[in-house]
């Protein structure tokens, strides 16, 4: 018998993130590296720990191997505890049937038994797609104070961008009266962040109802929320004003990394009371050699810099050889930039090697991407916006 939890978090981590191109060919989007030592999923997991939520189900489906290995016992986030902790929840066989997760709501529906073990009053629904620091406990208190059936975290987006989001139209008490998915003529600029708190008994009811509806696409935004609104359930908007970045595309992932180089940093990563935890690679401090230059950059353990690095983010164990030049780029764990190579406005994925004298990316234009484990021959040129994977011919 497990002890009751007030709130259980369910993290939807099954999406492919196809707009990240070759970066998510072999890993799920939440496992994509970010910010020199993190992966995207470190943000929602650390937010849970810092918010006092210690029971987290992570729903996986697409390329789960690396994500599973990364989460492990949950120790980096203090989620390796006896009563609660982090659980990886892939789809599974049930009796004679067995199926993939068909949508966000269906994924939760298929794990009702997991949630019920903890007999929670509330369930927090999260995704592994965003970089942000948020106190879910404050949001939960808001939900309870408003006697809501559901609370949706929203942030105000520039009006011209509102047509790209799910927009919440609220009354003067922050109660949501209408939900519009990607409206042409938005009435509000409050965009859903994909972070929901539900009173569990209500959500359970609507999940079951939704499952019975064969025409439903089993999605929170398209089905569950509109159904609850139709039934006049109390849904309130919880405004969030902090840094929040969707890292769903190559460009936005690159931008989010570059944001960390701004002064002041738009997301305070030095805050000791709200640490972002990550699995530690356990390498020696990084080394900057004589003759190297490093400006306006983030560098982490295990790196060895003999060349020139400016306005860039280097992950663990990256080697920049003599005479190599790295500008406005993101170099992921274990990659090597050989002597004389020039890397500009690029993302170099894990364990790639940029050969001597090679050119990657350009000063302007789209971001060039070198895929995981790719070795670029000496002297080749990769133009802006090009993605290089195994199928690329030099």
């Amino acid at each position, binding site marked *: 018998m497990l002890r009751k939890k007030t709130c259980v978090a369910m993290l939807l981590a099954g999406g492919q993130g196809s707009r990240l191109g070759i970066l998510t060919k072999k890993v799920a989007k939440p496992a994509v590296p970010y910010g020199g030592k993190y992966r995207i999923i470190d943000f929602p997991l650390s937010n849970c720990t810092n918010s006092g939520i210690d029971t987290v189900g992570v729903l996986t489906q697409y390329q789960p191997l690396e994500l599973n290995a990364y989460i492990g016992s949950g120790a980096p986030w203090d989620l390796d505890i006896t009563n609660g902790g982090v659980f990886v929840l892939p789809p599974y066989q049930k009796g004679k049937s067995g199926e993939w997760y068909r949508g966000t709501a269906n994924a939760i529906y298929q794990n009702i038994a997991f949630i019920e073990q903890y007999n929670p009053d509330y369930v927090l629904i999260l995704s592994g797609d965003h970089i942000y620091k948020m106190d879910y406990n404050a949001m939960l208190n808001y939900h309870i104070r408003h006697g809501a059936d559901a609370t949706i975290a929203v942030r105000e987006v520039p009006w011209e961008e509102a047509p790209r989001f799910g927009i919440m139209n609220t009354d003067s008490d922050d109660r949501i009266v209408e939900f519009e998915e990607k409206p042409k003529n938005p009435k509000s600029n409050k965009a859903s962040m994909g972070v929901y708190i539900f009173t569990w008994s209500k959500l359970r009811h609507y999940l079951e109802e939704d499952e019975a509806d064969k025409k439903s696409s089993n999605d929170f935004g398209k089905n569950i929320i509109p159904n609850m609104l139709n039934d006049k359930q109390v849904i309130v908007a919880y405004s969030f004003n902090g840094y929040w970045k969707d890292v769903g595309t190559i460009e936005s992932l690159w931008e989010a990394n570059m944001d960390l180089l701004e002064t002041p940093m738009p997301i305070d990563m030095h805050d000791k009371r709200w640490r972002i935890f990550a699995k530690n690679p356990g390498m020696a401090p990084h*080394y900057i050699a004589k003759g190297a230059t490093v400006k306006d950059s*983030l560098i*982490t353990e295990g790196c*060895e810099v003999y060349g020139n690095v400016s306005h860039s983010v280097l992950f663990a164990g990256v080697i920049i050889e003599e005479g190599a030049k790295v500008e406005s780029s993101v170099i992921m764990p274990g990659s090597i930039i050989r002597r004389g190579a020039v890397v500009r406005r690029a993302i170099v994925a894990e364990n790639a090697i940029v050969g001597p004298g090679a050119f990657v990316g350009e000063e302007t234009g789209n971001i060039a991407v070198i895929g995981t484990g790719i070795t670029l021959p000496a002297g080749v040129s990769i133009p802006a916006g090009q993605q290089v994977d195994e199928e690329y011919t030099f």
Partner: protein
Amino acid sequence: MKDVMGLIYTGENDARLRELTVTRAIAAMPVAGRYRVIDFLVSSMVNGGMKNIGVITQKNYHSLMDHLGSGKEWDLHGKNNGLHILPPFLTRENVGLYPGLLDALRSNNNFLIRSKQETLVLSNSNIIYNAHLDELVQYYRDTNADITLLYTKDPSMKRDEYGTYLSIDKSGNVTDMEVLPTHPGYDNVFMEVLVIKRELLRDLVDKAVSHGLHSMDKDIILRLVQDKSAKINAYEYKGKCWQIDSVQSYFKFNMDILDPEMRKGLFRDELPVFTKVRDEMPACYGDNATVINSLVADGCQIDGIVENSILFRGVKIAPDAHVKNCIIMQDGQVHEGAYIENCILDKQAVIKRNARLIGPDAYPIVIGKDVVI
């Protein structure tokens, strides 16, 4: 490797480390930007397959306990085995301060009895090394020795009036020993790391202590070698090692590992060094940062000039500050316009605006923990 346990003694003399060991044991000394001395020893043992490791503490062991915690970072939080911190306690014959290693071992007889492993690796804690201890134990087993000693031929380890030196014959057996010689006659320096059967160790310690003896090297090993009553051989450690027992040797170790070759000798891919994790973000370099030949840990913020230095986690170097040949421990700060050279800043030390502090090359200035200058 199964059936081997580790035991680390951390009670070494530390007077020559001055302020640095006022609040901590040598084993807890911060080194190489993010480690403590003991990390290298515990990691060597863990990498060698040991899952039951005891750490005998003596004085000032609070920071050691704080650092090692449950042993989780070394995967030593198992049910049967794991990490055991063994602080001194009062008994009829012991008032809490061990006169020597043998007394410490005798006091922890119960831990030795409770442990299940047949073989034991005993290590000191003031030599930094990263060894394949599994190969050492294999050698011990293959040669059917009673005791196998780990030694090095590293010339920097040979010093007048310090250490224990071995004479070794062609088949690897120890034929003579010098303990604390004025001028060492042999080149083989005993690294104070040995392999022995747990029961044999208990037996030898018991006999020696009951005869009023205190020194492992002089009172047990040397006697066994001299009266040829046991097979004692030696195994060479070919990697780099450093004795940490004075401010100079501490400073030298840190400066040595700025050399990429030296660093490779200590940080080897197959022998990772584990330590307590602090979850700091990567180091941030500002527009005007200039860093030359330095090791920098996560959480640092660098806007000034850093040359030939080691910066631990969370260190801040302000614009126009200049740091040369320095070791700056966790959360140290050097403010605008300050210049420091040949200094060791203990944790949270702060050098205020425009201060100048230049130590002589051979004798770095030590700034104590939490001191503001």
